[in-house]
């Protein structure tokens, strides 16, 4: 019974967390004012360029609501089953693909994201891979992982890069599950703040250990402590 309750609690907790993440990821809708003959400004340009790309409007995208724009709007309205009045109101904006500004009542302040646990995950791998390395070598290992996240050749998330099969020995043999040292945490933070002593490196290895021949064909950037760094 206890176990079941525990599971229910975990599910609830993750649900709350997920909804938090969902909420903050929602962007703010842009304002969609009502437009008519004589209106001007960037929202008119928006309507014009949209109508132009869909073939209703042939004039210039100049941000001025004139005769050409009005007839294009009417054409668009009749094609889409809207009241043909030549005024860009709520329904026409929506048909153009812009949602009207939502009332803030629907917005709940997000509380789902408080800390970034990525640092700890990164620090554990740094500790597993480079515990005996000098400080600069630790920052460089962390930077390699971040460079991989940004590279199109590797997974797009930090967890994806770190847990990619065979990518890091300390993950394969479980050493990276140990608590990281303070220095490893500092190194991980420095790398996340933009310090990269490996200057864009995607690979590192210990030349004292047997490694695949392929890896030596990579252009080497530098050596730090016991590790070789390469692109």
């Amino acid at each position, binding site marked *: 019974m206890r176990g079941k309750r525990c599971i229910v609690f975990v599910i609830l907790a993750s649900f709350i967390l997920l909804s938090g993440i969902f909420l903050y990821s929602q962007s*703010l809708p842009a*304002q969609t004012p009502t437009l008519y003959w004589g209106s001007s400004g960037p929202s008119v*340009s928006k309507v014009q360029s949209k109508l132009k790309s869909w073939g209703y409007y042939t004039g210039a995208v100049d*941000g001025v609501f004139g005769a050409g724009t009005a007839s294009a709007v009417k054409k668009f309205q009749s094609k889409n089953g809207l009241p043909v009045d030549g005024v860009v109101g709520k329904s026409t904006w929506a048909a153009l693909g812009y949602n009207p500004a939502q009332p803030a009542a629907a917005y709940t302040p997000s509380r789902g994201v408080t800390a970034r646990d990525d640092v700890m995950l990164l620090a554990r791998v740094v500790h597993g891979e480079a515990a005996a390395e000098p400080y600069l070598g630790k920052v460089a290992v962390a930077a390699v992982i971040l460079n991989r996240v940004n590279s199109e050749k*590797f997974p797009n998330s930090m967890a994806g890069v770190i847990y990619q099969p065979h990518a890091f020995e300390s993950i394969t043999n479980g050493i990276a599950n140990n608590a990281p040292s303070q220095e490893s945490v500092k190194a991980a933070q420095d790398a996340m703040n933009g310090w990269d*002593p490996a200057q864009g490196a995607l690979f590192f290895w210990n030349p004292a250990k047997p490694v*695949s021949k392929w890896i030596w064909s990579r252009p*080497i950037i530098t050596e730090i402590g016991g590790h070789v760094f390469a692109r």
Partner: protein
Amino acid sequence: MRRWWIIPALAGILVVGAVAYWGYGVTRDNRQLVTYLNNRNQRSFYELMGNVEHMEVMLSKGIVSGSPTQRMMIFSDIWREAYAAQENLTSIPIAGPSLTRTSAFLSQTGDYAWSLAKKYARGIAVKPEELDKLNELHTEAGYLAAELQKIEKNASDGRLLWSEIKSRGDKTLKDRTPVPDSLTEINRNMEEFPTLIYDGPFSDHILQRKPLGLTGKQITRAQASDLARRFVEAGVNTKYRVTDTETVNGLIPAFRIHLLPVNNPAPRVIVDVSKKGGHILMMVNTRSVGNDRISPEKAVTIAGKFLAGRRIMNMKPTYTIEQQNTAVVIFEYEQDGVLIYPDLMKVKVALDTGEVVGFEGTGFVMNHHPRNLPKPKVSRKEALEAVNPELKVMSEKLAVIPLENLEEVLVYEFRGDLKGDTFIVYINAVTGEEEQVLKVIDTNSGPVTM
């Protein structure tokens, strides 16, 4: 005293039985684990195949379809499938990074489709040659799908192994090739396809971009040592000596100079100086930092003086990250009152003594160049109209931000509050379009934008 051996014999049988039972349990567990892992790999493989097949179909639909709305949805689908395909590909265990070309193809295709979807969403005309590229991508996706199907067929007929993981009992499987090795073969053939040329974040012109701020003449190792020493010593009482020099052949070829205080074996300070022009790329002081006694506000002043003392001008502090008794102050270049976000530098201040223990200038050297800033065509008031009216705007300024394709745009930056959440909205100062919305999240190490 008859049959004295019965008891030891019974005990012996019990022990043998227990060992056999235990051994059976271990073997069963082991087999279960192997099956479990192989099932995971199979799942990834089948999902990858599904993703690639969908991609191929969607790419051909994207070529044929005539409606912008339809295309927008198709391209969003391609992006989603490509992203999922890459995640599945990278979770199949393959030794060594031998699938990088396949992975790059998936990222670039997804990203390219996304850039087209965005263009349609914004009503920007898509050129015919941009659609032509879809043909090339379609051919390559077709090749990949067909090869994956071949592997699947061989594997289900038992000619290929599902995984490199096998239990020791299965001696018969030894001489068969595992599926991952066949994937490596595909990757080799994909190297021959032309790479995609376009302007997204993964385009080759961005991956191979040149540092824009790397001006000046080549310097010698001795000059670099001298520059590094002066950079560390400026405004500080301690004198330093160079102990070691190395070279770094990264994006910006550099000399790495190791320094120690003249009368002390610690702390070690490392400075990277670019070979061309002698720009300082990075400085790291490896000393440990004690408890904080200095406020982050004071740290901002110290960091500002640090830059001024090294004749680095027109830098404006924009925000501070506080962690582990240090404050990292981020500076942006300012030109005619406009903040240039790509040209950034970071200064790390130890909050125990107020000493500067870190400097990062690579971003500045990569991006800084003389710019002709356009005049805003949209007034401040018109730009504000494009912002959600519920956002209580607290501050605003003109800034230059980089887009994904590294193109720079002049924007109005509005920072505001919505029910306790802070947002930053960027409105293009030339077209009036909303370029980006960022949310500021307070973490225990300072605010982060997402």
